[in-house]
């Protein structure tokens, strides 16, 4: 299978990454009963004969010997990465996949990007090449990071640049956790806006995530379970927030539930590239169909269902509910309401026992209540993957290129301006080699331009529609 190579950068990135590897193993174990190293596994894992050391030759077929994750774990503090290396997933990684330092980035994008970036560039390139060498066919890089801090934000976007320089043809997907208004890192607006410029210019697709949304989902699930409204029991391993059945069940940590949601997002996103189905949907297809103009590459994601009930018989009414939920406000992974904004494009990736007629029925049903841009009235990209996620008989990942991302960006801009006008904390950044005032002005300008593009699109919403006249040819 084509390989998707995740880079977990920074504390948040590595915490999510850890959940991702864990749940990926769980997912593959559920379908791969015989312990054979198959095409699906090869997307995320190498099969290594460790008798000749961790750098042993890859074994491409036959029984699973020792699985190594295809990944780079980068952090300028050791805490999270060390925990991973001491935890149940330690055998997935070897030292050649890690880049760590001790003092952290002090929640300073400039430290992450300019200081550590410069310092570790060679190391990053070398390890990147080594990792890529082991891949038959590299389709996509994933960066998993947060925007508000220093390492994930600064060094993470530095890595993004390196990826573009070294492997310009490989797609760059970024999963970015955006800070909320109440974020306790004061300088998070600076870090986020500086990082946004990099995402605008160097990412192929960005999946923004907001902690508030993850938090709301976790709460909603807790409420549903404790209120007893669900009647029969919920299948524990089906919860989008759950680590059940994975290696980390015993040692669940505070943010695990929220991070599991992001991990599940990535698993669903790559499911059709790994597993078979009647209508495959690769990552390069997602980029192709959902990005009509280069800079408009921010995709709002939603995952349904959030859990499955233990009773097996799911009438098709429930299936349709899954589609409805995908468009509801409280299933989105950012604080946004796509239904009341303008769609540029929408992708539906369905897993499990769902057929094309179910897809069509629901698209027909939901279409009238959604607003699509005039030049893409039927803009749906669909995929059918036969293998459902663990604990479910079917699931749906919706990705929307929708103007509802705009508020996230305008609020970020507002928070940035509040600090910037007073020049608060600027000196922490400007004294880093390579940082100048222009970095800030260019970054806010980039963000403003992006917001303006969304404004222009929004202005067309609901307006009169005149189709351009067709080509006239001589008869």
């Amino acid at each position, binding site marked *: 299978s084509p390989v998707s190579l995740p880079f977990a950068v920074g504390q948040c990135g590595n915490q999510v990454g850890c959940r991702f590897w864990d749940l990926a193993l769980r997912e593959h174990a559920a379908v791969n009963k015989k312990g054979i190293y198959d095409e699906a596994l090869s997307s995320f894992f190498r099969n290594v004969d460790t008798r000749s050391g961790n750098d042993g030759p890859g074994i491409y077929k036959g029984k699973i010997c020792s699985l190594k994750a295809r990944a780079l774990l980068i952090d300028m503090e050791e805490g999270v990465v060390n925990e991973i290396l001491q935890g149940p997933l330690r055998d997935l990684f070897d030292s050649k996949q890690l880049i760590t330092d001790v003092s952290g980035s002090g929640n300073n994008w400039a430290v992450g990007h300019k200081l550590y970036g410069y310092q570790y560039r060679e190391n990053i390139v070398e390890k990147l090449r080594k990792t890529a060498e082991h891949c038959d066919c590299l389709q996509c890089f994933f960066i998993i990071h947060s925007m508000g801090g220093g390492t994930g934000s600064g060094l993470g976007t530095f890595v993004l640049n390196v990826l573009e320089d070294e492997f310009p043809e490989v797609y760059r997907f970024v999963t970015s956790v955006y800070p909320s208004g109440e974020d306790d890192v004061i300088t998070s607006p600076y870090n986020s806006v500086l990082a946004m410029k990099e995402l605008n210019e160097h990412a192929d697709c960005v999946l923004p995530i907001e902690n508030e949304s993850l938090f709301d989902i976790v709460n909603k699930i807790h409420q549903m379970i404790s209120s007893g409204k669900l009647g029969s029991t919920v299948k524990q391993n089906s919860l989008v927030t759950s680590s059940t059945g994975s290696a980390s069940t015993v040692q669940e940590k505070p943010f695990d539930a929220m991070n599991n949601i992001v991990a599940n997002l990535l698993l669903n996103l790559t499911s059709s590239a790994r597993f078979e189905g009647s209508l495959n949907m690769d990552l390069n297809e997602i980029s192709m169909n*959902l990005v009509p103009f280069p800079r408009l590459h921010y995709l709002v994601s939603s995952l349904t269902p959030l859990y499955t009930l233990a009773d097996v018989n799911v009438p098709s009414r429930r299936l349709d509910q899954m589609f409805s939920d995908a468009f509801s406000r409280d299933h989105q992974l950012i604080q946004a309401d796509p239904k009341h904004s303008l769609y540029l494009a929408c992708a539906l990736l369905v897993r499990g026992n769902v*057929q094309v007629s179910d897809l069509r029925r629901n698209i027909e049903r939901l279409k009238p209540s959604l607003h699509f841009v005039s030049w893409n009235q039927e803009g749906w*990209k669909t995929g059918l993957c036969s293998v459902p996620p663990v604990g479910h008989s079917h699931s749906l990942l919706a990705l929307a290129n929708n103007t509802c991302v705009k508020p996230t960006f305008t609020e970020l801009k507002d928070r940035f301006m509040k600090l910037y006008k007073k020049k608060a904390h600027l000196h922490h950044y400007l004294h880093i080699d390579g940082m100048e005032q222009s970095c800030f002005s260019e970054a806010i300008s980039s963000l403003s331009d992006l917001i303006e593009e969304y404004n222009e699109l929004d202005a067309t919403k609901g307006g009169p529609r005149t*189709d351009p006249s*067709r080509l006239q040819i001589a008869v």
Partner: protein
Amino acid sequence: MSIVTVQLGQCGNQIGREVFNAICSDVHGTHGLCSKKENESYHDACKERFFCEEESEVPVARAVLVDMEPKVISQTLSVAARSGYWKYDDRSHFCQKQGSGNNWANGYSVHGPRHKEVIMNLVQKEAEKCDRLGGFFTIMSMAGGTGSGLGAFVTQCLRDAFPSSFILNHVIWPYGTGEVIVQNYNSVLTLSHLYQSSDALLVHENDVIHKICAQLMNIKQISFRDVNQVIAHQLGSVFQPTYTAEGGLRYSRNPLGDLMETLVPHPEFKMLGLRNIPQMPENSLAYSTFSWPGLIKHLRQMLIANAKMEEGIDWQVQPPRLGSSLPPSHSTNRPLHFNTSIANLVILRGKDTHSVDLGSFQDPSLYTSWLNPRDAFNAWKTPRAFNKYEKSASLVSNSQFLLKPLDSVVGKAWNMFASKAYIHQYTKFGIEEEDFLDSFTALEQVISSYTIL
């Protein structure tokens, strides 16, 4: 003569497998309501056309499987082999890992040239296995990146390498409301390019087949497999052996050539539509009887009224009265919904085909004026029943069947092109705005030609 099938992309490979399945299952099924001798004759003709005997225990399909990602081909090969009745040649396939990303330019400009040699070598090998090569049958969807883009490129290569062979492209028209967002761009680029190298395009529309599955086959949860099986049945009804001449002693040996000769008198008109009746769930077959007059009447009205299936036919539509003094384009006699034909082919299979009256299809008012109605209409027959249907009638039509779908796709693509949306994804791989304009121009020409029939 043998046909080499080239299966392109996910759709092409999934359908291809169902086609060989349908053909095999037809041949091995009940003895076809005819004499043993007839049946054996049919069996032999079918074998020669689609399969190679070789040293293997089961017949080997004459096919080349091409895809830019490995999962579908892998599945296709193994499912075929499991049937026990036939299989593919294990070496006759080519795949890559990356896919084409639904990008026509990627399929056409990057994968095409890059893999041309390997793919054409496989085709050459299959062609050499044939005692006599009757031509190529390619199966592809227009919506994606591989079938469409690489498919267009491969068709061009086939034309260059085999200048005197017949090439028939089986093209799948995607659902109107998206499978792929850029499907209209991909479709426009595919159709305009195929038009240059192909002899004819035989089209199946997903929306239409879906309706057949829902309303005629009574399938509740319709899968792509269901859709593909209906398509395979319809294709089988065209390509299984028939007698092309009245009183013919042998099954026709040149199906593609015969098809082109009867249906494509002019290179400007290559769009062929297909109708097949009756269609019903297998378990209803035993309880149904049909009469030829009834079937022929329905098929003719489906042609005239451009009905996509045998339910919901508009019986009000009638052909224009001839002998009007007004020129056709100003004729108030010409009903708006009437489907004008250039040429039609009716294929009858099963009981009592020799006695069927097809005079109604020779009515000159059905056709444009350039061809003699005798030449514009042809019929192929065989007493050998097809796929458990006691009587089965197919219509392959070069008419205005596809005018509206074509116009719709071009319109939507043009609308999107005007905003320049997604164009950067194509220019990245070498297809420029100019190339789009050329394609639009070519298709507007085709639309215009079919409109003024």
